[in-house]
Protein backbone atom coordinates (compact mmCIF):
# COMPACT_ATOMS: atom_id res chain seq x y z
CA UNK A 1 0.00 0.00 0.00
CA UNK A 2 1.24 3.47 -0.87
CA UNK A 3 2.38 5.25 2.31
CA UNK A 4 1.47 8.82 3.19
CA UNK A 5 3.91 11.51 2.20
CA UNK A 6 4.17 13.17 5.67
CA UNK A 7 4.84 9.78 7.20
CA UNK A 8 7.61 8.95 4.69
CA UNK A 9 9.21 12.38 5.02
CA UNK A 10 9.15 12.29 8.82
CA UNK A 11 10.69 8.83 8.86
CA UNK A 12 13.49 9.87 6.48
CA UNK A 13 14.13 13.07 8.39
CA UNK A 14 14.40 11.18 11.66
CA UNK A 15 16.79 8.70 10.07
CA UNK A 16 19.05 11.45 8.73
CA UNK A 17 18.96 13.57 11.88
CA UNK A 18 19.91 10.58 14.01
CA UNK A 19 23.16 10.39 12.07
CA UNK A 20 24.92 12.79 14.43
CA UNK A 21 25.18 16.42 15.54
CA UNK A 22 26.09 17.65 12.05
CA UNK A 23 22.77 16.34 10.78
CA UNK A 24 20.56 17.59 13.61
CA UNK A 25 19.50 20.75 11.78
CA UNK A 26 18.57 19.02 8.52
CA UNK A 27 15.10 19.97 7.27
CA UNK A 28 13.12 18.43 4.41
CA UNK A 29 14.53 21.08 2.08
CA UNK A 30 18.18 21.11 3.21
CA UNK A 31 20.42 20.57 0.20
CA UNK A 32 22.29 17.43 1.24
CA UNK A 33 24.65 17.61 -1.72
CA UNK A 34 25.73 21.25 -1.55
CA UNK A 35 26.10 21.05 2.23
CA UNK A 36 28.38 18.02 1.84
CA UNK A 37 26.26 15.96 4.24
CA UNK A 38 25.43 13.15 1.84
CA UNK A 39 28.29 10.71 1.42
CA UNK A 40 28.22 7.18 0.04
CA UNK A 41 27.73 5.68 3.51
CA UNK A 42 24.66 7.76 4.31
CA UNK A 43 23.28 7.15 0.85
CA UNK A 44 23.58 3.38 0.99
CA UNK A 45 22.23 3.37 4.56
CA UNK A 46 19.28 5.48 3.44
CA UNK A 47 18.53 3.13 0.56
CA UNK A 48 18.76 0.09 2.82
CA UNK A 49 16.48 1.77 5.34
CA UNK A 50 13.91 2.65 2.68
CA UNK A 51 14.04 -0.83 1.18
CA UNK A 52 13.56 -2.37 4.61
CA UNK A 53 10.68 -0.06 5.49
CA UNK A 54 8.75 -0.20 2.24
CA UNK A 55 9.76 -3.46 0.57
CA UNK A 56 10.95 -1.78 -2.61
CA UNK A 57 14.31 -2.13 -4.33
CA UNK A 58 16.47 0.53 -5.92
CA UNK A 59 19.23 0.07 -8.45
CA UNK A 60 22.14 2.27 -9.38
CA UNK A 61 20.03 4.18 -11.92
CA UNK A 62 18.02 5.60 -9.05
CA UNK A 63 21.16 7.12 -7.52
CA UNK A 64 20.85 10.47 -9.26
CA UNK A 65 21.46 13.90 -7.75
CA UNK A 66 17.83 14.88 -8.33
CA UNK A 67 16.56 11.93 -6.31
CA UNK A 68 18.85 12.46 -3.33
CA UNK A 69 19.33 16.23 -3.12
CA UNK A 70 16.88 16.76 -0.24
CA UNK A 71 14.85 14.63 2.13
CA UNK A 72 11.78 15.88 0.31
CA UNK A 73 13.19 14.63 -3.03
CA UNK A 74 13.97 11.24 -1.49
CA UNK A 75 10.37 11.05 -0.27
CA UNK A 76 9.24 11.76 -3.85
CA UNK A 77 11.45 8.93 -5.07
CA UNK A 78 9.97 6.52 -2.51
CA UNK A 79 6.38 7.48 -3.29
CA UNK A 80 7.09 7.22 -7.02
CA UNK A 81 7.84 3.52 -6.60
CA UNK A 82 4.22 2.77 -5.68
CA UNK A 83 1.33 2.67 -8.12
CA UNK A 84 -1.03 5.65 -7.74
CA UNK A 85 -3.94 5.13 -5.39
CA UNK A 86 -7.24 4.39 -7.11
CA UNK A 87 -9.70 7.29 -6.95
CA UNK A 88 -12.06 7.03 -3.98
Amino acid at each position, binding site marked *: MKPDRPQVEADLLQFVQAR*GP*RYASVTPDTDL*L*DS*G*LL*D*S*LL*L*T*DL*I*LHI*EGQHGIE*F*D*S*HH*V*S*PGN*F*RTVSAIADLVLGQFPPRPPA
Partner: protein
Amino acid sequence: MKWPLHDRALPDRKLPLYNRFYLHAPRASHVDPVMVWGTEIDADALTSFLRERNRGGHVLLTTAHALIRATAVALAQFPDMNVRVVGRRVFAFRQVNIRMGFVHRGSREIDLLVVRDADAKSLEQIGLEVWQRLLQASRGTGPRDRDRARLRRIPGFWFRQVLRIYGFVDRHLRLPTLGRLDELRGGGVMVNDLSFPGAPPMRSYKATRFPDQADSLNLTLGPIESKVVARAEQFVSIGVMPLFLRADHRLVDAYQVGRFLAVLRDLLSHPERLDLPACTDALAAANT
Protein backbone atom coordinates in the same frame (compact mmCIF):
# COMPACT_ATOMS: atom_id res chain seq x y z
CA MET B 1 39.39 -16.94 -17.41
CA LYS B 2 41.28 -13.71 -18.09
CA TRP B 3 44.97 -12.98 -18.33
CA PRO B 4 45.49 -9.58 -16.75
CA LEU B 5 49.20 -9.45 -17.59
CA HIS B 6 50.99 -9.43 -20.91
CA ASP B 7 52.60 -12.72 -21.95
CA ARG B 8 56.18 -11.55 -21.70
CA ALA B 9 57.94 -9.81 -18.86
CA LEU B 10 59.58 -6.46 -19.54
CA PRO B 11 63.15 -7.11 -20.69
CA ASP B 12 65.84 -6.33 -18.12
CA ARG B 13 67.38 -3.71 -20.38
CA LYS B 14 64.17 -1.68 -20.11
CA LEU B 15 64.23 -1.64 -16.32
CA PRO B 16 66.10 1.24 -14.67
CA LEU B 17 69.19 0.02 -12.88
CA TYR B 18 68.12 1.24 -9.44
CA ASN B 19 64.74 -0.43 -9.77
CA ARG B 20 66.65 -3.64 -10.49
CA PHE B 21 68.72 -3.17 -7.33
CA TYR B 22 65.48 -3.23 -5.34
CA LEU B 23 64.03 -6.03 -7.45
CA HIS B 24 67.00 -8.32 -6.92
CA ALA B 25 67.92 -7.28 -3.38
CA PRO B 26 68.45 -10.31 -1.16
CA ARG B 27 65.90 -10.75 1.58
CA ALA B 28 68.69 -10.53 4.17
CA SER B 29 69.30 -6.87 3.21
CA HIS B 30 65.87 -5.95 4.66
CA VAL B 31 65.43 -3.42 1.89
CA ASP B 32 62.28 -1.32 1.98
CA PRO B 33 61.13 -0.41 -1.55
CA VAL B 34 58.09 1.58 -0.36
CA MET B 35 57.95 5.26 -1.34
CA VAL B 36 55.26 7.71 -0.26
CA TRP B 37 54.74 11.12 -1.83
CA GLY B 38 52.12 13.48 -0.46
CA THR B 39 50.73 16.52 -2.23
CA GLU B 40 47.58 18.64 -2.26
CA ILE B 41 44.89 19.31 -4.81
CA ASP B 42 42.61 22.29 -5.28
CA ALA B 43 39.47 21.04 -3.56
CA ASP B 44 37.44 24.13 -4.52
CA ALA B 45 37.78 23.31 -8.20
CA LEU B 46 36.85 19.66 -7.68
CA THR B 47 33.88 20.33 -5.42
CA SER B 48 32.45 23.05 -7.65
CA PHE B 49 32.87 20.77 -10.68
CA LEU B 50 31.02 17.96 -8.90
CA ARG B 51 28.37 20.38 -7.64
CA GLU B 52 27.79 21.61 -11.17
CA ARG B 53 27.66 18.08 -12.62
CA ASN B 54 25.26 17.06 -9.89
CA ARG B 55 22.88 19.90 -10.77
CA GLY B 56 21.52 18.19 -13.84
CA GLY B 57 23.28 14.85 -14.19
CA HIS B 58 21.58 11.49 -14.01
CA VAL B 59 24.23 9.83 -11.79
CA LEU B 60 25.30 11.19 -8.43
CA LEU B 61 29.04 11.83 -8.73
CA THR B 62 31.47 11.96 -5.82
CA THR B 63 35.17 12.60 -5.29
CA ALA B 64 35.74 8.82 -5.35
CA HIS B 65 34.48 8.60 -8.93
CA ALA B 66 36.66 11.55 -9.94
CA LEU B 67 39.66 9.92 -8.26
CA ILE B 68 39.12 6.64 -10.13
CA ARG B 69 38.75 8.41 -13.46
CA ALA B 70 41.71 10.74 -12.90
CA THR B 71 43.94 7.86 -11.81
CA ALA B 72 42.98 5.83 -14.86
CA VAL B 73 43.58 8.71 -17.26
CA ALA B 74 46.95 9.48 -15.65
CA LEU B 75 47.93 5.81 -15.69
CA ALA B 76 47.09 5.55 -19.38
CA GLN B 77 49.67 8.30 -19.87
CA PHE B 78 52.24 6.36 -17.84
CA PRO B 79 51.89 2.75 -19.00
CA ASP B 80 55.29 1.96 -17.50
CA MET B 81 53.65 2.39 -14.09
CA ASN B 82 50.79 0.00 -14.84
CA VAL B 83 52.90 -3.02 -13.94
CA ARG B 84 53.48 -5.59 -11.22
CA VAL B 85 56.19 -7.89 -9.97
CA VAL B 86 56.03 -11.64 -10.60
CA GLY B 87 58.98 -13.46 -9.12
CA ARG B 88 61.82 -11.09 -9.92
CA ARG B 89 60.37 -10.00 -13.22
CA VAL B 90 58.11 -7.08 -14.10
CA PHE B 91 54.96 -7.60 -16.16
CA ALA B 92 52.71 -4.93 -17.64
CA PHE B 93 48.95 -5.07 -17.21
CA ARG B 94 46.88 -5.36 -20.37
CA GLN B 95 44.19 -2.93 -19.20
CA VAL B 96 43.87 0.07 -16.94
CA ASN B 97 41.87 -1.48 -14.11
CA ILE B 98 41.47 0.46 -10.88
CA ARG B 99 40.51 -1.05 -7.57
CA MET B 100 38.86 0.94 -4.85
CA GLY B 101 38.37 0.34 -1.15
CA PHE B 102 34.91 0.94 0.26
CA VAL B 103 32.96 0.27 3.43
CA HIS B 104 30.91 -2.87 2.96
CA ARG B 105 27.70 -1.94 4.78
CA GLY B 106 26.43 -5.50 4.80
CA SER B 107 29.33 -6.93 6.77
CA ARG B 108 30.58 -3.60 8.21
CA GLU B 109 34.12 -3.99 6.99
CA ILE B 110 36.31 -2.82 4.14
CA ASP B 111 35.94 -4.45 0.74
CA LEU B 112 37.45 -3.77 -2.66
CA LEU B 113 35.90 -3.35 -6.08
CA VAL B 114 37.50 -3.20 -9.50
CA VAL B 115 36.58 -0.82 -12.30
CA ARG B 116 37.85 -2.36 -15.53
CA ASP B 117 39.07 -0.24 -18.44
CA ALA B 118 38.50 2.83 -16.31
CA ASP B 119 40.40 5.03 -18.75
CA ALA B 120 37.78 4.27 -21.43
CA LYS B 121 34.78 4.95 -19.21
CA SER B 122 33.12 8.28 -18.51
CA LEU B 123 32.67 9.61 -15.00
CA GLU B 124 28.99 8.68 -15.21
CA GLN B 125 29.75 5.10 -16.25
CA ILE B 126 32.21 4.78 -13.39
CA GLY B 127 29.67 6.29 -11.01
CA LEU B 128 26.94 3.84 -12.06
CA GLU B 129 29.27 0.87 -11.73
CA VAL B 130 30.48 1.90 -8.28
CA TRP B 131 26.97 2.62 -6.97
CA GLN B 132 25.77 -0.73 -8.25
CA ARG B 133 28.51 -2.54 -6.34
CA LEU B 134 27.93 -0.46 -3.20
CA LEU B 135 24.22 -1.26 -3.24
CA GLN B 136 24.87 -4.96 -3.84
CA ALA B 137 27.35 -4.98 -0.98
CA SER B 138 24.99 -3.23 1.40
CA ARG B 139 22.35 -5.88 0.70
CA GLY B 140 24.90 -8.69 0.63
CA THR B 141 23.25 -10.00 -2.53
CA GLY B 142 26.03 -9.78 -5.09
CA PRO B 143 27.82 -12.92 -6.33
CA ARG B 144 31.00 -11.59 -4.74
CA ASP B 145 29.20 -11.32 -1.40
CA ARG B 146 28.28 -14.98 -1.57
CA ASP B 147 31.92 -15.83 -2.30
CA ARG B 148 32.99 -13.73 0.66
CA ALA B 149 30.52 -15.53 2.90
CA ARG B 150 32.02 -18.87 1.81
CA LEU B 151 35.54 -17.62 2.51
CA ARG B 152 34.47 -16.41 5.92
CA ARG B 153 33.44 -19.94 6.89
CA ILE B 154 36.93 -21.36 6.31
CA PRO B 155 38.62 -22.05 9.68
CA GLY B 156 41.68 -19.91 10.48
CA PHE B 157 44.21 -22.69 10.06
CA TRP B 158 42.99 -23.65 6.59
CA PHE B 159 42.54 -20.01 5.61
CA ARG B 160 46.22 -19.44 6.34
CA GLN B 161 47.28 -22.51 4.34
CA VAL B 162 45.17 -21.42 1.34
CA LEU B 163 46.66 -17.92 1.49
CA ARG B 164 50.19 -19.29 1.77
CA ILE B 165 49.82 -21.58 -1.22
CA TYR B 166 47.90 -19.09 -3.32
CA GLY B 167 50.29 -16.29 -2.36
CA PHE B 168 53.31 -18.40 -3.28
CA VAL B 169 51.90 -19.30 -6.69
CA ASP B 170 50.76 -15.74 -7.36
CA ARG B 171 54.15 -14.32 -6.40
CA HIS B 172 56.05 -16.62 -8.74
CA LEU B 173 53.80 -17.35 -11.70
CA ARG B 174 51.89 -15.23 -14.18
CA LEU B 175 48.39 -16.41 -13.33
CA PRO B 176 45.04 -15.79 -14.98
CA THR B 177 42.14 -14.47 -12.94
CA LEU B 178 39.56 -17.18 -12.58
CA GLY B 179 36.69 -15.80 -10.59
CA ARG B 180 35.28 -12.93 -8.65
CA LEU B 181 37.54 -13.16 -5.64
CA ASP B 182 40.82 -13.05 -7.51
CA GLU B 183 39.66 -10.42 -10.01
CA LEU B 184 41.34 -7.86 -7.75
CA ARG B 185 44.68 -9.03 -9.14
CA GLY B 186 43.57 -7.59 -12.47
CA GLY B 187 44.40 -4.08 -11.34
CA GLY B 188 47.70 -2.69 -10.15
CA VAL B 189 46.41 0.53 -8.61
CA MET B 190 44.18 0.98 -5.62
CA VAL B 191 42.42 4.21 -4.75
CA ASN B 192 41.09 5.17 -1.38
CA ASP B 193 38.73 8.09 -0.81
CA LEU B 194 38.96 9.04 2.86
CA SER B 195 37.39 12.47 2.45
CA PHE B 196 34.18 11.47 4.22
CA PRO B 197 32.34 14.08 6.34
CA GLY B 198 33.84 14.29 9.81
CA ALA B 199 37.21 12.78 8.85
CA PRO B 200 40.09 14.41 10.77
CA PRO B 201 42.71 16.43 8.89
CA MET B 202 45.22 14.17 7.18
CA ARG B 203 48.85 15.16 7.58
CA SER B 204 50.39 11.95 6.38
CA TYR B 205 49.12 8.58 5.28
CA LYS B 206 50.89 5.43 4.28
CA ALA B 207 48.51 2.86 2.96
CA THR B 208 49.48 -0.71 3.69
CA ARG B 209 50.11 -2.97 0.78
CA PHE B 210 47.39 -5.52 0.15
CA PRO B 211 49.02 -8.93 0.47
CA ASP B 212 49.20 -9.58 -3.24
CA GLN B 213 51.97 -8.48 -5.54
CA ALA B 214 49.48 -6.80 -7.90
CA ASP B 215 49.06 -3.93 -5.44
CA SER B 216 51.76 -1.73 -6.98
CA LEU B 217 50.39 1.77 -6.37
CA ASN B 218 48.00 3.23 -3.85
CA LEU B 219 46.38 6.65 -3.99
CA THR B 220 44.61 8.06 -0.97
CA LEU B 221 42.57 11.25 -0.95
CA GLY B 222 42.00 12.95 2.40
CA PRO B 223 39.37 15.40 3.68
CA ILE B 224 39.04 19.04 2.65
CA GLU B 225 40.83 21.65 4.73
CA SER B 226 41.06 25.40 4.44
CA LYS B 227 44.46 26.86 3.77
CA VAL B 228 45.69 30.42 3.27
CA VAL B 229 47.79 30.80 0.14
CA ALA B 230 49.24 33.70 -1.84
CA ARG B 231 47.55 34.23 -5.21
CA ALA B 232 48.13 37.23 -7.45
CA GLU B 233 49.98 38.93 -4.59
CA GLN B 234 47.04 38.47 -2.22
CA PHE B 235 46.40 36.08 0.60
CA VAL B 236 43.27 34.03 0.02
CA SER B 237 41.68 31.08 1.77
CA ILE B 238 41.18 28.02 -0.40
CA GLY B 239 40.09 24.43 0.17
CA VAL B 240 42.69 21.74 -0.35
CA MET B 241 42.63 17.96 -0.18
CA PRO B 242 45.73 15.91 0.64
CA LEU B 243 46.65 13.23 -1.85
CA PHE B 244 49.14 10.49 -0.98
CA LEU B 245 50.74 8.08 -3.39
CA ARG B 246 52.40 4.91 -2.16
CA ALA B 247 54.66 3.35 -4.78
CA ASP B 248 57.13 0.50 -5.08
CA HIS B 249 60.74 1.30 -5.98
CA ARG B 250 61.10 -2.08 -7.68
CA LEU B 251 58.76 -0.71 -10.35
CA VAL B 252 59.11 3.05 -10.40
CA ASP B 253 61.47 5.76 -9.23
CA ALA B 254 60.77 9.04 -7.51
CA TYR B 255 61.03 11.00 -10.75
CA GLN B 256 58.27 8.89 -12.35
CA VAL B 257 56.17 9.14 -9.20
CA GLY B 258 56.51 12.92 -9.25
CA ARG B 259 55.54 13.22 -12.92
CA PHE B 260 52.59 10.88 -12.48
CA LEU B 261 51.38 12.79 -9.43
CA ALA B 262 51.73 16.10 -11.28
CA VAL B 263 49.40 14.87 -14.04
CA LEU B 264 46.96 13.41 -11.54
CA ARG B 265 46.97 16.57 -9.47
CA ASP B 266 46.39 18.64 -12.57
CA LEU B 267 43.43 16.47 -13.58
CA LEU B 268 41.82 16.70 -10.15
CA SER B 269 42.47 20.43 -9.88
CA HIS B 270 41.02 20.95 -13.39
CA PRO B 271 38.35 18.24 -13.30
CA GLU B 272 36.69 19.42 -16.49
CA ARG B 273 39.60 17.58 -18.13
CA LEU B 274 38.18 14.31 -16.84
CA ASP B 275 35.43 14.38 -19.44
CA LEU B 276 36.08 11.82 -22.13
CA PRO B 277 36.35 13.90 -25.30
CA ALA B 278 38.53 16.52 -23.67
CA CYS B 279 40.95 14.15 -21.99
CA THR B 280 43.50 13.80 -24.73
CA ASP B 281 43.81 17.52 -25.34
CA ALA B 282 43.85 18.28 -21.63
CA LEU B 283 46.61 15.80 -20.97
CA ALA B 284 48.64 17.17 -23.81
CA ALA B 285 48.21 20.61 -22.26
CA ALA B 286 49.14 19.29 -18.82
CA ASN B 287 52.27 17.64 -20.13
CA THR B 288 53.56 20.79 -21.82
